[in-house]
C-alpha cells in the first residue's frame, strides 16, 4: 500500500495507454472500436477480466437466437421515469430517444430496453450508494420500454447528476444513463452507458476512457436535438445504438 491514488496518477495511466493506441494507429493499425476489458486505470477491472483469449466458435445456434419480450413485460408508464411517484422529481426534465440498429443498419424491433440512473443530485436509489447527496422521494431512476417497428425507443426522465466514486481520490463519474439492450440474437446483448455532450469530466474518467478509440467514445455520447425539445416542458437528446454481434447476425439473414 503506497500513497493514495490521485487523479494525476490516473491521468498519467490514461495518457500512456492513449499514446500507445495513437502510436499503433499511426503505424497502420485500425483505431479500436470496442472497449478494453483489461483497463488498469479502472482498478476494479484488474481482477475481473479473463486472461485467456476468448474461444472462437461459430457453432452458436442457441446464441444466434434470443429471448423475446412482449406486452406483459412492460407497462405504459415504465418509459416515463418522472411518473413513478405521486410528485414530480426535481431536476431538468429531458426526453431521450433514438433507434436500435444491427450492424447492417436494420432496426431491432419489439425488443426490451432498460435504463437506470442517478437522480439530479447524483445519487442512486440504492442502499450501497452512500454519496451524501439527497435522495429524491419522487424519483427511483429505473425505466423500460419495447422498441417499435422502426427500432425506436423513448424515455422521459430527468438529467442525472455527476457523482463521486472511490476508484481514486476525487474520482467523479460524468453524468450518464445506464442502458441494457437485447437484440434479436442473445449474442447481440449490450449493456452500456449514455453520456451527455461536452461533459467536462470526460478526460478524468477511466470508465469512459476504457474505450480507447476517439470515434468509438463519441458513439457513447447523445446529441442535444432542439427539435426534440418541447416548449415549456423538456429538453431533447437523441442517441442511436448499434448492436455488435457475430457476422451471422448482420452479413446475411442471421438464422
Amino acid at each position, binding site marked *: 500500500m503506497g500513497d493514495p491514488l490521485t487523479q494525476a496518477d490516473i491521468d498519467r495511466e490514461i495518457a500512456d495507454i492513449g499514446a500507445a493506441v495513437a502510436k499503433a494507429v499511426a503505424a497502420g493499425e485500425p483505431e479500436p472500436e470496442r472497449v478494453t476489458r483489461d483497463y488498469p486505470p479502472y482498478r476494479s477491472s484488474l481482477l475481473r477480466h*479473463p486472461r485467456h483469449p476468448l474461444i472462437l466458435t461459430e457453432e452458436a445456434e442457441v446464441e444466434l437466437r434470443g429471448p423475446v419480450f412482449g406486452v406483459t*413485460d412492460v407497462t405504459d408508464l415504465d418509459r416515463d421515469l418522472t411518473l413513478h411517484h405521486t410528485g414530480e422529481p426535481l431536476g431538468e426534465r429531458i426526453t431521450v430517444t433514438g433507434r436500435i440498429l444491427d450492424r447492417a443498419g436494420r432496426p431491432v424491433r419489439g425488443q426490451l430496453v432498460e435504463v437506470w440512473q442517478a437522480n439530479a443530485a447524483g445519487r442512486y436509489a440504492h442502499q450501497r450508494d452512500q454519496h451524501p447527496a439527497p435522495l429524491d422521494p419522487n424519483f427511483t431512476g429505473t425505466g423500460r420500454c419495447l422498441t417499435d417497428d422502426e427500432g425506436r425507443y423513448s424515455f422521459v426522465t430527468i438529467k442525472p447528476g455527476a457523482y463521486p466514486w472511490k476508484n481514486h481520490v476525487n474520482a467523479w463519474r460524468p453524468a450518464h444513463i445506464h442502458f441494457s439492450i437485447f437484440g434479436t440474437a442473445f449474442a447481440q446483448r449490450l449493456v452500456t452507458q449514455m453520456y451527455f455532450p461536452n461533459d467536462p469530466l470526460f478526460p478524468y474518467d477511466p470508465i469512459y476512457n476504457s474505450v480507447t478509440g476517439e470515434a468509438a467514445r463519441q458513439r457513447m455520447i447523445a446529441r442535444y436535438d432542439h427539435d426534440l425539445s418541447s416548449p415549456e416542458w423538456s429538453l431533447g437528446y437523441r442517441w442511436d445504438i448499434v448492436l455488435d454481434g457475430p457476422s451471422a447476425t448482420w452479413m446475411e439473414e442471421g438464422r
Partner: protein
Amino acid sequence: MKPTPSQTVGPFFGYALPQAGGGDLAPAGHPDAVVVHGHVYDGAGDPIPDALLEFWQADPAGSLTGKPGSMRRDHVDGSFAGRDGVRFTGFARVATDADGHWALRTLPPGAATPGRPPYISVCVFARGLLQHLYTRVYLEPGTDPLLASLDPGRRATLLATPESPGVYTHDIRLQGDGETVFLDFG
C-alpha cells in the same frame, strides 16, 4: 455500421435489472425441474457479490422460439409480477448474492441441433467487467466441435457437476486458476 461500445453494468444495477424469482425459469412444481447453482469468482479467488448472470436456452423439446413473460409486470401498480408459472420463456436473470452465489431453477434444455449435447447459454455482467462475457453450461456429457477443441482442464469449466439428483453445481471464474472458457461467436 460501427457498434456502440460496451460499458460496465456498474454497482447499482440491483434495483433495475434483477427481480425476485428471476432464476425460477421452470414452471412452478414442474416434476422435471433441475437446479444449477454456484459462485462467481474474481482473479484472486474471491466471490463477486455484484455480478449479474443471464441464461438463455432451448425448451425441453429443443425449441429456441422462446416466449414473452420473463419480466412480467403488474399492470396495476407497475411492480414485477414474476412469470406466469406456466409458460417456459427460455430466459432467466439472476444477480449474485452477498456471498457471490447464484441459483437457476430450470428445465433441462433439449438439443437445438440433433446429436449435439444441449447447453444453457450464459451472459456474465459485473461491476469491474467492462464488457459482458459469454459462456455455457452443459448438463449432460457429450461432445461438439467446441468441447472437442478444448483441453480437458478448460473443457471442465463448461460442464456442470452433478451434486445430487436434479442438482448441479457450476462455478464461474473470471480470471486465474480454473478460468472459465469465455466465447466469441465470430
